[in-house]
């Protein structure tokens, strides 16, 4: 294993410290228990708190700021954060509109956020994201996994919360976006958890894992590497099959958001190639892409690979996707 590490035990804290220093204009870091929150906290809004295991950066800390999250609780690498972190984050921000937790659907995250929600004496609600259509149950989940589509949820709910909307309204929008977003990922290599020191799984030089999870957990099937168009076609078809199952009706008027997310070790050059390939295919299916995002947004440490997410837009989602945002990892119109 060749990684930038001083001491294994210090990796997380040193990385969080660097993040807080690099983005000191936007975030501040609290320690013991660890959480990051907005430097300039807005009042009179629903407080949005997310979190999860580390190793997926910029998720979630990179999405703290105006128009998105108020705070994020990072756990150890690929390990859920603990309730004391969520409680400390929630209690550090004053609100009269309640707290909304945005949680990716993994057993550990669900249980820890659930306990925090029970222990928190502020009105609160939780959205569980489950956009990954690759597999139903998996190493860490009952039901579907929450992956890159989570950032579309965080962006849209974040925008709505800035308008002073209620807890119920924010939760409803988040659930709608989650329902209308499907994702699937493919791994070209494994990732290596620093503390483990060796690749999480074995993948032969000429093999890929279709439907891989963002911790390197198994997907649908393993296949031989092939040309990009063939791989992307399988991803796009899986998403469209999922939309059919969700009974998301598609007409010519429908607009979509296409997100090509890198897992950490795939160059942007290839991510844009995937974007090109996916747009060609979606056009053949009569699907109109009017919003796009390409880059490393929900990573899996040093895994090579990418995920494709497609969100079926409506006027409300479009409005909140387009609205101003100022975070470390996403910034536009302000």
């Amino acid at each position, binding site marked *: 294993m060749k990684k930038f590490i001083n001491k294994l035990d210090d990796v997380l804290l040193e990385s969080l410290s660097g993040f807080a220093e690099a983005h000191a204009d936007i975030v501040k870091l609290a320690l013991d228990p660890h959480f990051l929150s907005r430097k300039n906290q807005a009042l009179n809004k629903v407080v949005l708190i997310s979190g999860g295991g580390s190793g997926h950066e910029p998720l979630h800390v990179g999405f703290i700021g105006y128009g998105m999250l108020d705070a994020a609780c990072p756990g150890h690498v690929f390990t859920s954060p603990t309730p004391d972190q969520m409680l400390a984050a929630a209690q550090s921000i004053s609100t009269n509109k309640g707290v909304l937790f945005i949680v990716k659907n993994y057993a550990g995250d669900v249980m820890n956020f659930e*306990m925090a929600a029970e222990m928190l004496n502020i009105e609160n609600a939780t959205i569980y994201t489950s956009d990954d259509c690759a597999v139903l149950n998996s190493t860490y989940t009952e039901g579907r996994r929450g992956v890159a589509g989570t950032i579309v949820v965080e962006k849209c709910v974040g925008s709505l919360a800035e308008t002073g909307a209620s807890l119920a309204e924010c939760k409803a929008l988040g659930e709608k976006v989650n329902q209308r977003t499907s994702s699937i990922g493919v791994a070209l290599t494994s990732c290596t958890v620093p503390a483990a020191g060796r690749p*999480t799984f074995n993948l032969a030089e000429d093999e890929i894992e279709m439907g891989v999870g963002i911790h390197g957990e198994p997907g649908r099937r393993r296949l031989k590497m092939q040309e990009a168009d063939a791989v992307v076609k399988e991803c796009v078809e899986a998403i469209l099959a999922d939309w059919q199952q969700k009974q998301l009706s598609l007409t010519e008027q429908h607009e979509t958001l296409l997100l090509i997310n890198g897992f950490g070790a795939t160059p942007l050059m290839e991510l844009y190639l995937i974007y090109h390939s996916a747009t060609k295919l979606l056009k053949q299916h009569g699907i109109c892409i009017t919003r796009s995002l390409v880059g490393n947004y929900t990573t899996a440490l040093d895994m090579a690979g990418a995920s494709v997410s497609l969100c079926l837009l409506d006027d409300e989602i479009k409005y909140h996707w387009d609205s101003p945002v100022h975070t470390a990892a996403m910034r536009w119109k302000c």
Partner: protein
Amino acid sequence: MHTSFILDAAKAIQQSILNNEAALESLDREIGDGDHYINMKRGAQAIVSMQEELVSLSAALALNKIGLKLLSTLGGASGPLLASFFMSMAKQWPAAGKADLLSIALAFDAGVQAIMLRGKAGLGEKTMLDVLIPVSQQFKQLAEKKQTKAFICIALMESAEQGLINTRDLIATKGRAAGLGERAMGHLDPGAKSCQLIITAVCQLALAP
């Protein structure tokens, strides 16, 4: 049962986990994600290092503190599950001087029920509950029949061992191996293994003269 026994038990559990590093690591690598040993080690270390803080507390308060500590130390799924166990057991713990075997069995059972509720899981799903549920049931039955402590301890160790072995042929429907389906068959569940180790360590301590 006094707080001093709980503190000794924590040390015995830590030793047992350290002694079984290779076994826990390899089980979790087969059907989990390979972090179970690290998490259990971290949890045990956290509890053992609370000795000074716990020693003057009642058993119930000490168990509750242990639960809260595990909740903030472990993360993952094991944090909330084990924390729910200790915090619920603490709530049911008999008052000082009234801790007979049956009341301890009932408190233990309350802890196991809390894990079932939190994890939304039951018997036969290839998890730690395949060890804990039979152990708890037997503990209650034997305590109701007023069996001796020594008899109960030996029976519970056997029950834990059997529960662990039973996980080998189960298909996981909950927990870390659920995504593997039939691929997890033929493998022991690592969470069940660590529970078996914990129960054995505590029973052996209770048996010691």
